[in-house]
């Protein structure tokens, strides 16, 4: 073997060795990048879950009068896209809870507040029953429930700041929200 050939062989081995090293380094970098992406995803999920948990706790604190104002947004987990039937079930549960909470709050109130609570409780209880049995006037009952709760929003704001009425106020708000979503879902499904 001549000098030129030996030199060429050495260079070839060097290039092959360097290529192996680079390939190994590339694989290592790819693995690191994947691990970073996984870590990033986990951190994002953790951040979303923490934010959701924080919002959920803030809503609970508000309902227990620990916060003067309700949070400006709701947790993402409260807003999972649902079909009309699931939305109706959610509205039904929310209306039942609202009816119970308002009826329970009657004892701690008097006069106009007491009458309004009885009125909201009655409307919510009726809407829950209509939704539960699939009454022909179910949508109208849900719509009426939303309108009655919304028309009493100032009263509910005040009630939410009292110890005994906070649960009734927050339940009513949730009920109106759930009924509105149920109505929207049923209209969209009927159109679609």
């Amino acid at each position, binding site marked *: 073997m001549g000098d030129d050939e030996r030199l060429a062989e050495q260079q070839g081995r060097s290039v092959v060795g360097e290529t192996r090293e680079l390939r190994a380094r590339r694989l290592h970098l790819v693995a690191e990048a994947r691990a970073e992406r996984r870590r990033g995803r986990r951190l994002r999920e953790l951040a979303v879950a923490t934010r959701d948990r924080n919002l959920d706790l803030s809503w609970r604190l508000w309902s227990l009068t620990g916060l003067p104002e309700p949070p400006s947004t709701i947790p993402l987990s409260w807003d999972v896209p649902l079909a009309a039937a699931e939305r109706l079930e959610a509205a039904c549960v929310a209306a039942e809870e609202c009816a119970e909470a308002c009826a329970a709050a009657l004892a701690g109130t008097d006069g106009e507040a007491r009458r309004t609570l009885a009125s909201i409780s009655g409307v919510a209880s009726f809407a829950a029953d209509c939704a539960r049995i699939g009454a022909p*006037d179910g949508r109208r009952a849900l719509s009426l429930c939303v309108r009655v709760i919304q028309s009493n929003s100032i009263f509910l704001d005040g009630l939410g700041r009292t110890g005994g009425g906070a649960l009734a106020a927050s339940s009513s708000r949730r009920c109106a929200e759930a009924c509105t979503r149920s109505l929207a879902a049923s209209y969209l499904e009927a159109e679609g």
Partner: protein
Amino acid sequence: MSDIDAAVRSELLFRAVNERILEIGENDVEALEILCECGDESCISTVLITLRDYERLRLDSSRFVVCEGHELADIERVTERTPEYLVVEKAGRAPEVVVRGFADRIVP
């Protein structure tokens, strides 16, 4: 659905809700804040009425409690007028529609 049917259907819905309010409030309140039982589906006016008066009125299923100005002259006539509300009684074909509505149980 005719105008009469639609109006009576709304009134029956309001009546059914009010009966629920009565059930909930009868042991806790002396006066009830019930929904106006008029034929306008979008109405959310309320009427203040004593338990005794409302229980008396609802004995006759063709009588409804409405706010002043919410009565429908075509299908009902005013039988009682108070500062808080009017009591109207169905007239013409409307009583049949009321009876049919109860029979069909359009509301629970």
